[in-house]
């Protein structure tokens, strides 16, 4: 094959000694979910493991330039689903994809990245750490031969594998005409359920999801909704919600109640409480030390769960 195998972008090519397996359609290990669908690749290159056919799996996809709200939601859903034994499929891209993988890995669950390049290429290069974790703790899958550089045309094609490997597709944040919507369309064609996380109206990043909801997609308000749809019941009832009972002082409670998943800035909090900056800052640091909130960027805070 005389194709451009000289893809040498900085940091992208992984050493050549990693173990890559080619699994043709005839192989018993070839995912059953894909075998049943038309237009699936003749074989898959795999590094690490493949999703198990018997286990429920959910694909989480969304915008690459995601907001903090979207990233946190993706991570949270992935963690909760993985805790319930669901395999998380995504595309290892920046933003929602990467956060979904991270969430699943945090919960120690199974997670699989479907790449638009060869499985020996880490794209985007900045996801090197995630790439290594997926390779060792989960799996990397691609229909492209090893050494194939990431090309724009590959990504819509790999979306059909993402949706094909999943029983349910969750779109977290998407702009109008986003690649994630292609995945959602493909999922519907393949007869899978599509869920969308609602965003604020007016935000560009909510357009795609709100459109999906308008067209009849499932409303993903909490991970339990998805689990219900998959037919999974959480046996241990009520262990997640009230496990942590930290007593907050009155001041802390006031500030805490003003902080949600949308990052709240220092100045907004000063305005809403009417307190001097010194006091708000002190309370914020206190809450941070108690682990109730997290600083996502300088002087912007969100709740931790």
């Amino acid at each position, binding site marked *: 094959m005389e194709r451009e195998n000289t893809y040498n972008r900085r940091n992208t090519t992984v050493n050549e000694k990693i173990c890559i397996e080619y699994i043709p359609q005839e192989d018993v290990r070839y995912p059953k979910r894909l075998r049943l669908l038309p237009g699936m690749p003749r074989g898959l290159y795999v590094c690490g493991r493949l999703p198990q056919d018997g286990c429920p799996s959910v694909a989480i996809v969304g915008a690459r*330039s995601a907001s903090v709200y979207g990233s946190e939601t993706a991570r949270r859903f992935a963690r909760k689903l993985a805790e319930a034994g669901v395999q998380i499929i995504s595309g290892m891209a920046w933003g929602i994809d990467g956060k979904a993988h991270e969430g699943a890995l945090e919960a120690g669950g199974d997670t699989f990245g479907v790449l638009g390049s060869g499985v020996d290429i880490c794209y985007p290069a*900045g996801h090197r750490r995630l790439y290594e974790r997926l390779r060792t703790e989960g799996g990397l899958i691609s229909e492209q031969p090893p050494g194939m550089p990431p090309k724009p045309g590959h990504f819509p094609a790999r979306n059909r594998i993402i949706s094909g490997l999943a029983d349910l597709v969750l779109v977290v944040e998407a702009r109008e005409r986003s690649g994630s919507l292609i995945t959602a369309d493909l999922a519907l064609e393949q007869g899978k359920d599509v869920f969308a996380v609602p965003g604020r109206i007016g935000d*560009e990043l909510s357009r795609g999801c709100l459109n999906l909801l308008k067209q009849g997609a499932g409303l993903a308000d909490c991970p339990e909704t998805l689990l219900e749809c998959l037919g999974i019941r959480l046996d241990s009832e009520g262990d997640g919600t009230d496990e942590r009972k930290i007593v907050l002082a009155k001041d802390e409670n006031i500030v805490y109640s003003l902080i949600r998943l949308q990052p709240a800035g*220092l100045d907004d909090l000063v305005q809403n409480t009417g307190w001097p*900056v010194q006091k708000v800052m002190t309370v914020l640091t206190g809450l941070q030390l108690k682990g109730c909130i997290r600083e996502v960027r300088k002087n912007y805070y969100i709740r931790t769960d």
Partner: protein
Amino acid sequence: MFSSVMSAAVLGMEAYPVQVEADICDGLPMFCMVGDLSPEVREAADRVRTALRNTGIPLPPKRVTVNLSPAYIRKMGTRFDLPIAAALLAALGIIPPEHTSGVLLAGEMGLNGRVRPVSGILQTVMLARDLGCSWCLVPEENALEGAAIPEVAVTGVGTLKELLGYMKDPRKGKARARTGGGWEDLSGAYSVDFCEVNAQEGAKRAAEIAAAGMHNLLMVGSPGAGKTMIARRIPTILPPLTREESLEVTRVYSACGLLNGGKGLIRVRPFRSPHHTISANALAGGGRRILPGEISLANRGVLFLDELPEFSRRALETLRQPLEEGVIQISRADGKYTFPARFQLVAAMNPCKCGYYPDRSRCRCLPGEIRRYLGRISGPLLDRMDLCTEVPRVDYQSLVTTGENESSRVIRGRVEAAWSMQRDRYRECGWQFNAHLPARAIREYCALGRQEERLMETAFEKLELSVRAYHRVVKTARTIADLEGEKKIREHHLMEALGFRMLDRKLWDGE
């Protein structure tokens, strides 16, 4: 006949004594100048000869020799025209030779005899004081600057004719000496004030803490959020310059020829905001004639670097040594120069390339791009920033409301109190402010109680502080305590300092 007068050469920021000797004797008519002269000094011959003729004193057709000694110091600039003219007038016997002792002259001359201003007059007059000269003749425009040294009589000279008059009758000349204006407080010297800044409470508080301990401050925010507006107002909340500081600042500006308008000593704290295309040499100092750079011009004031990631890496790295030591040393082929550089660094930057990062409706930068953008600033430089704050975009409502914002004067009152606490505490130390506290002295001057120790222990683990970050937080907390007039650092001081701490690289990109 032989004659000699005193003058001074200025190299870097220092003035060196130069004896200007003139000799007029029989021989072929010529004008000969010696003494390691740069071209502009050599040209003095033509300027002085013509100026003398136009004043009605033609040089006789004789052999004229002018020597500037010591010959091993390079003479640069146009400041030797006036002493050469005076030496010639003495050699011609027009000025009595005894009148040339104890006088130091410097100044440029036009062909019509008009005397023009030169740079470096303040250090020249200081040198005159050290040499025991009691009288200086300098260009009219520079007279007020020289008058800052009360031990020396400084007379401004407008034309060659005036020079002639003063030198013939020194009593008349000394009577015309300028006196420096009184050292009254010029608080209304700034055209900007903090009361013009609406909202931005976080950034204003950070600026106040930074000013109170001379801490370095980094502001992150979208374009148009008001980062520059706040930075420009930081000098207005710094206590006014003392006389010694003013002399130090004026010396730098004088050497660079940046004292305009003949206003004498600089009274307001410098605010320098060089463009981000600045070269490392322009920032640190250097050039063909070695002159102080922007960091020395910002001495005792604020150096504001807008668009920090756009500065060249080399330029930013030169800041590291002066930030630690308060001076910059420049070594070149012709010598070593030391310039003062005790400034407060205030930097501003956008959160990402397009500048709108948290607002995802406008910013489409990928996480990798944001990380690359922030990665342009080296870790060691970020390590030297004590405070960091976000400057958010202001909504219309708070923009138009004319609330009662605190004025610079009120804030400056608090900062002054904090400064005086530090002055008392560090009286016997080599530093003046909390920001300059060396790591070994932190235990002594920032002692923490048991409760406070426990808080910092939790913070160290929970917020994953580095050792450097830990020190910065404690120093900042010391300043916050000073602002409240507290002798001991309490928990809430530490907590506020933690809130304004510089984020670690890991947290830069929200990972």
